[in-house]
């Protein structure tokens, strides 16, 4: 570092420390950051509490079933309990399993869509789609306004900080008459601007990293295996996003216009990236790919056979069921024992098979339209960054689509566990309880690649702005 650079940095530091307004701004944003971290962790804690409650409810339920095997059958109530625990014709639709999508530790920093999508489901062997579409309770006004989490502070407020610190880097010197003094120095104006921008880049990025670090440490153990990569990527993301805004400010400054022009220009860009472009894309997507959930509503209707006593209808249902589930074909008891329960089980399973096409088409449409809109992220680093943060903290749409998919698999496991018993007329024994189906969800193995890809887009745009600014400045100063 040469002497001139050092001098510039020293003076910049001195003027920064003296500027009460800037210090106040930093303090305010810092407080906002702390509040955001507090708010995010409280939301996630609330969700974890709910998950714990839900799990207790499930444990209680199954505990009751299990103890009923050891109880004397000397009352109607005890007998009923035992029946529910051991007779598959009750158990298949009574036993409730909870599938849970636990929040990633860093969901507290980027709540994303977590407040909107249900993150636990109680499933029985009944029709899956009857149980799938329930919403979590939420205040629509709150959903509309959105979450004050760390990702909001970084994506919305950090750029404002950058704008406030840098919009007058050149023009204020000019307006206050210092520029003429600088011009007679041996060092070029371009270099002075570059050094000062770099100074503020270090300062503000360091500040943002500090807030992020606090967040990463408060909401989870940063150094735990499952968090480390996420935490590192988060920090890299912060640096890149900050660099992008500095690149943009560099470009704006390189026009050498008045500070008011710079401020308006920068505010305009901020508005464009954070409001106008996403707002247009959202409505464009909605009108280009309209989603018809009205059609899906029908799936939640609780239906039964037209007439349970109609032998012909029952036989029809069972034979169609066997077409989809040939594994039960060998059961000669199918049409003899306990037929009503079997027919009803077959009926709701068939209902799922019939509506599978519609539900799949729906999820495909959601994926498709979001893929379509993702191609525009190239031009919008802000949304791109939000997406990356959501990916890192597993609060993105894809996570929820995967979860829905895992629910389908889980439901299949549940039904085969009970149908195996029901259709072969076997009771559920105490030992069977240890073989109960468990919910598992496949990790999105593309997750890190997707994050890196988002980063790449930001890097390219930042370079583009940087080079444009550099060229422009060269032209003007020469």
């Amino acid at each position, binding site marked *: 570092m040469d002497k001139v650079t050092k001098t510039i940095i020293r003076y910049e530091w001195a003027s920064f420390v003296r500027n009460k307004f800037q210090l106040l701004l930093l303090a305010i944003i810092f407080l906002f950051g702390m509040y955001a971290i507090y708010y995010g962790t409280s939301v996630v804690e609330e969700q974890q509490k709910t998950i714990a409650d839900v799990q207790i409810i499930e444990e209680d339920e199954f505990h009751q079933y299990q103890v009923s095997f050891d109880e004397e059958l000397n009352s109607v109530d005890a007998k009923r309990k035992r029946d529910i625990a051991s007779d598959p014709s009750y158990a298949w639709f009574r036993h409730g399993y909870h599938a849970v999508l636990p929040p990633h530790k860093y969901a507290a920093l980027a709540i994303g869509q977590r407040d909107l999508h249900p993150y636990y489901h109680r499933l029985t062997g009944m029709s899956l789609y009857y149980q799938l579409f329930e919403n979590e*309770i939420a205040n629509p006004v709150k959903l509309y*306004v959105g979450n004050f989490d760390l990702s909001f502070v970084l994506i919305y*407020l950090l750029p404002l900080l950058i704008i406030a610190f840098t919009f007058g880097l050149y023009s204020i010197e000019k307006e206050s008459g210092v520029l003429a003094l600088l011009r007679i120095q041996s060092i070029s104006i371009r270099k002075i601007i570059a050094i000062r921008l770099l100074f503020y880049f270090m300062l503000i990025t360091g500040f943002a990293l500090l807030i992020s670090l606090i967040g990463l440490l408060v909401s989870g153990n940063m150094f735990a295996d499952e968090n480390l990569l996420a935490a590192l990527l988060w920090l890299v993301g912060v640096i890149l996003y900050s660099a992008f805004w500095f690149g943009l400010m560099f470009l704006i400054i390189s026009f050498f216009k008045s500070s008011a022009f710079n401020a*308006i220009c920068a505010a305009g860009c901020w508005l464009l990236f954070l409001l106008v472009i996403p707002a247009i894309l959202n409505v464009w997507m909605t009108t280009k790919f309209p989603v018809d959930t009205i059609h899906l509503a029908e799936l939640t*209707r609780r239906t039964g056979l037209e007439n349970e006593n109609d032998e012909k209808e029952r036989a029809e249902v069972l034979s169609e069921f066997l077409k989809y589930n040939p594994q039960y074909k060998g059961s000669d008891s199918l049409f003899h024992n306990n037929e009503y329960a079997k027919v009803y089980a077959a009926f709701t399973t068939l209902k799922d098979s019939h509506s599978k096409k519609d539900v799949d088409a729906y999820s495909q449409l959601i994926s498709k339209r*979001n893929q379509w809109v993702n191609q525009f992220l190239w031009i919008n680093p802000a949304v791109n960054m939000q997406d990356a943060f959501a990916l890192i903290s597993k609060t993105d749409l894809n996570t929820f689509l995967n979860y829905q998919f895992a629910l389908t698999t889980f439901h299949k496991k549940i039904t085969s566990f009970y149908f195996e018993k029901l259709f072969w007329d076997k009771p559920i024994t105490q030992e069977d309880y240890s073989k109960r189906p468990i919910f598992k969800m496949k990790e999105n193995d593309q997750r890190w690649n997707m994050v890196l890809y988002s980063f790449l887009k930001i890097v390219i745009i930042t370079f583009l702005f940087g080079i444009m600014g550099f060229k422009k400045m060269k032209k003007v100063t020469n």
Partner: protein
Amino acid sequence: MKTSIRIAKKEIKIALREKLVLALSCIILVLLGISLYTGAIAYQQQQEAITKAQKEKREEWLGQGDKHPHIAAHFGTFIFKPKTVLSLFDFGLDTYTGTSVYLEAHYQHQFMFRPAQDHSSMIRFGELSAALVLQILMPLLIIFLAYASFTREKERGTLRLLSSQGITLTSIAWGKIMAYFIILLVILVPFVLGILLLSYLLKTPDTITDLGIRIVLLGAAYMAYIFMFIVLSVLVSLKSSISRNALLTLLTCWILFTIIIPKTVANLGESLYPLPSMKIYKEAILKDKKDGLDGKTPRAVRMAQLEKELLTKYKVDSVQQLPFNFDGVKMQAGEEYGDKVYDVHWGRLLDLFNKQNKLGSYASLLNPYIALRNISMGFSATDLNTSVDFQKKVENYRRVFIKKMNDDMAQNSKYGEFYEYSVGLDMWKSVEDFEYNTPSIYATLKKYTLELTSLFCWTVVLILLLNYITRKTKPTNG
């Protein structure tokens, strides 16, 4: 007055020369155009889909064949939330409230499918609607138009020249305000024409019955907002020494008003009044239905009481001797108790929502943006009040239709018979189709007294302040 008009004329001329103002006006006009266009398409798509689905569901209900009325009560029907024609102007909460609900006996199902669930987290950046443009972008245009209104005169020394001619600051200020207001009104002319054209083209039957007065009130509220923002900008410019400071102050206000405060308030509401989770909420309802609201009168006791009461009243010794089917009466009694329990819990939930949102209403006294946002949603019938009103009316419809089924069962079927009894088309026809009308504008106005007061006070106080300050201040060159 005459001088004010002359000043206004000059200001308009100058504004027309400003490229930035012209460009921004064009952008706003284009965005308004896009928003109306996409709003109209979304409205039509949604309206068509809902009308079609509602017709289908009605046909399903009528064509369900002969069956026991209680089976029909479980077959139930679906209701879909219609969009109001004003939603093409202000989407309000439509993206975040559920759209379909299944109505059946015993259960109050929740509304399913919030459109926001079909989006990635980009939806949280907002959707382009005319209301968004007018509430958020319009103030920005006003700021750009007016931030230098006085500071430029000060910087160029023309303010002194003006006052040396005997022109008061008050008349200068009003001249400028008039000019900006006229400019904005002219910009809005094509937009208003577009709205009128649309309302002529979209002559579908709508749920809003008092459309005319709502449009007039919306217009008045937005005018007040725009006017208020102009006065504010001029006032800040008057009090600032240089343009840069005026601009920065106004931009800070704008960001606080439109982005930071609304989000903070909504999040604070959520922290202060946490909502229960759906699972816990439903579990509590089930428990109260089972054990009684006081926790001491379980279902069996309630039913035994009912039986005893009826036996004494009709002076008979067994339920078989009652002049109606006791099962039907029991069914209805159970239904009504369930409704009572539901009302208690739902009431509590709504109370929490109201408390959370009340915070926003209070904040609107300090923040005119929140005031206008709430009023605009309210007048467009896309707010929470309308949504709750809709849910209440749907639930009432469910109760009436279930009661009809139970009463028929009590009056016309025999005790102990179920599959033997059935009713048909005449019965289904006697259940009227559901029709929804939004609450009257007067009911809506009552809900928004705080917001209306806020908008009124902001306007009046700013005007008084401007007059006071312009009289007190001596024109200087800053």
